[in-house]
């Protein structure tokens, strides 16, 4: 059933009937979600949706094209600041400012793609890391962007409607997230997507069969930066306030963790990675209050560790989860998913 018989089957967006059905169910569930959830849950899902967009963009670069980036917080910051600056200073409406910010971010992505033509591995990692650090440094210096004071997001207005609640923001963010996921799936199915994969597998071989390396490597950076920039623009509104501090190195590293833990070169993986990491970041903070674990941890803190340092358990657990996932499944959560699927499909064999 996974056999592809001709080219058109390969480039089809959706493979099978059940897939269409489940997709419809998912979309319906996403549409119904704000009606049943409370505002805190919607806020969490908004954050997740933004991280999904970023993880998709980064996965395109890391998983599909085989380039590493430790500087995506830089693009995230560019997207966020550009959106707000265009709205506050140029008085553009949100619907124009957001894509424009995406394109500004993409332009920076193109620039960062240039050294990537010659660099790989740790060398590229350092170049991108430096990019991320430099961007926040420069943003903190420029008074147009509020300097180190940060910027307050203006009220979000769409087609004359004021968006003030989390459900309202959800109504803006979730469709964008869905459209971008769809767009990325589309992209990976085309010549461009296959060229990216060819570059990843062997850039020299790819060049030999006629893939223009300069074009595709910089394009991968640009598209990835575009996604991240859009994510940043939306983030500015979910948070309501941004400062250079919001976009530190740790953010870049978390993005990379989402992609790798979720599964390299897989859209479903990016989504799963973004969901898991975001959720862990928010929920692990309360690990000391869990019914059974909490008292044990408290007692342990009293005996061996310190009570005031107890919340740091979240880092230990977080790190452990990341390590275990990669140890047991190099393809990350996506690998688990594939294996489960195969297990049930071939059951009882």
């Amino acid at each position, binding site marked *: 059933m996974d056999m592809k018989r001709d080219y058109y089957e390969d480039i089809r967006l959706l493979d099978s009937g059940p897939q269409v059905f489940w997709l419809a169910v998912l979309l319906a569930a996403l549409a119904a979600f704000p009606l049943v959830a*409370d*505002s*805190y849950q919607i*806020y*969490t899902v908004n*954050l997740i949706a933004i991280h999904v967009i970023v993880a998709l963009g980064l996965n395109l670069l890391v998983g599909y094209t085989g380039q590493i980036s430790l500087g995506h917080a830089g693009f995230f910051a560019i997207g966020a600041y550009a959106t707000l600056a265009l709205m506050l200073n140029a008085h553009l409406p949100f619907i124009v400012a957001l894509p424009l910010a995406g394109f500004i971010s993409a332009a920076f992505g193109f620039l960062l793609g240039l050294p990537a033509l010659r660099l790989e591995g740790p060398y590229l990692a350092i170049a991108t890391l430096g990019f991320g650090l430099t961007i926040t*440094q420069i943003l*903190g210096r420029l008074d147009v962007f509020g*300097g*180190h*004071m*940060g910027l*307050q997001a203006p009220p979000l207005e769409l087609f004359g409607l004021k968006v*003030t609640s989390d459900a309202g923001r959800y109504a803006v963010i979730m469709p964008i997230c869905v459209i971008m996921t769809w767009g990325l799936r589309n992209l990976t199915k085309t010549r461009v997507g296959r060229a990216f994969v060819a570059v990843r597998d062997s850039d020299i071989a790819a060049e030999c069969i006629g893939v223009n390396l300069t074009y595709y490597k910089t394009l991968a950076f640009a598209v990835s930066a575009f996604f991240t920039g859009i994510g940043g623009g939306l983030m500015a509104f*979910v*948070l*309501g*306030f941004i*400062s*250079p*501090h*919001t976009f530190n190195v740790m953010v870049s590293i978390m993005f990379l963790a989402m992609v790798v833990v979720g599964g390299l070169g897989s859209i479903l993986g990016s989504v799963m990675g973004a969901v898991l990491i975001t959720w862990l*970041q*928010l929920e692990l*903070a*309360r690990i000391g209050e869990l019914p059974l674990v909490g008292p044990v941890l408290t007692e342990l803190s009293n005996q061996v560790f*310190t*009570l*005031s*340092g*107890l*919340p*740091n358990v*979240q*880092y230990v657990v977080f790190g452990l989860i990341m390590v275990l996932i990669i140890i047991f499944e190099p393809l990350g959560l996506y690998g688990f998913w594939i294996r489960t699927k195969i297990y049930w499909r071939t059951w009882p064999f």
Partner: protein
Amino acid sequence: MKKILWLMVLVFSLALAGASGAAEVQGVTDTTIKIGQWGPQTGPAALWGAVARGTGVYFDLINSEGGINGRKIKYFLRDDGYNPNRTKAIAKELYEQEKIWGFACGVGTSPGMAVMPYIIKNNIPWVGMATGSPHWAYPPKKSIFAVYPLYPDEAQILTAYALDTLGKKKIAFFYQNDDYGKGGLAGAVRELKKRGMTLAADVPVEVGETDLASHVLKMKKAGADCVIMWVYPKHAAIVLGTSAKLGYKPQWMACSTLSDVALMFKITKGLWNGMIFGNFAELPDSKAPLMVKYRNAQKKFAPKERWGVFFYAGFGFVEPMVEGIKRAGKDLSVDNFVKAMQSLKNFQGIMGPITYGPERRQGLKKVFLAKCVPATAEVNGKKITYGKGQRLSDWMGVE
């Protein structure tokens, strides 16, 4: 007939009053008040997290004395790791799911700024954020009450002291390159400008930096005879060490965030000696009755905590909030609480005099200066030298 009618009206209005009086205010019952706080317990800013734990001990103390107007405080402390995404999630979770009444303190400008619109929108009481940024009180917001003296004011006081009392001629400013450091810088520049002077050098430092030789050389080359610092304890320690090595000996002055004199003396290996610094609360070894009482509370409820400035600042920052709740009486609606808070005039606990008014939301506007002097004590039969603060001035403010 008339009597029955009156009776009915009476019953009806009583029922109405009962319904509106008790059930209307979120997070308050006849026996409890729910109060929440976020603070970095993990990550690079975790050293300020002591504020949030101090508040917890203060509430324990109040509860052990029977609570406020018969209501015990139920306290929720959440770690945000100084990450604004998480701070906002915490604020929502506490207000919408735990149904708290109000927020106490909260560390950090960025986290606070991410939460402020939400707090204004929902009209949640929030008192005593642990940062001296002017965003909270200017312009005034109905339910938000700041305590921490503004960084610019404090810098202005330190600068004036250096020029007038110490007779220094050239002042340099060494600051963390963000909202916090630049706030201090603005105050120093303001004071100098008033006298037609300028800074001899203003030297920013990035949060991650560990090598400060070029910073020190800049100040040395400018010939500054007094340096005011607005940095993290880590950078204060490194800059003093580097200066000692490079033979640069100006008069050092420091911001109140560095007022934990015993700690600073220890981590600078004694170089903190002679430092003049601002204070927003009594010195750690103060004999003021409230300080003694709080220290005993710490020994009782959190014996392993260090009696540092930021720990007991967690007591001080919420003192006005507790006083406000006390004055508001049984009816803890936000309007009533705000009215009670506005009646605070020169209220003093372990911090300086705190005043609020209809248009005034910045409670404390004064600091006092102290100087670090060495002292000796005997611990386990060994003589050790530690740093302690010596008061130089009374509470002073800016006109």
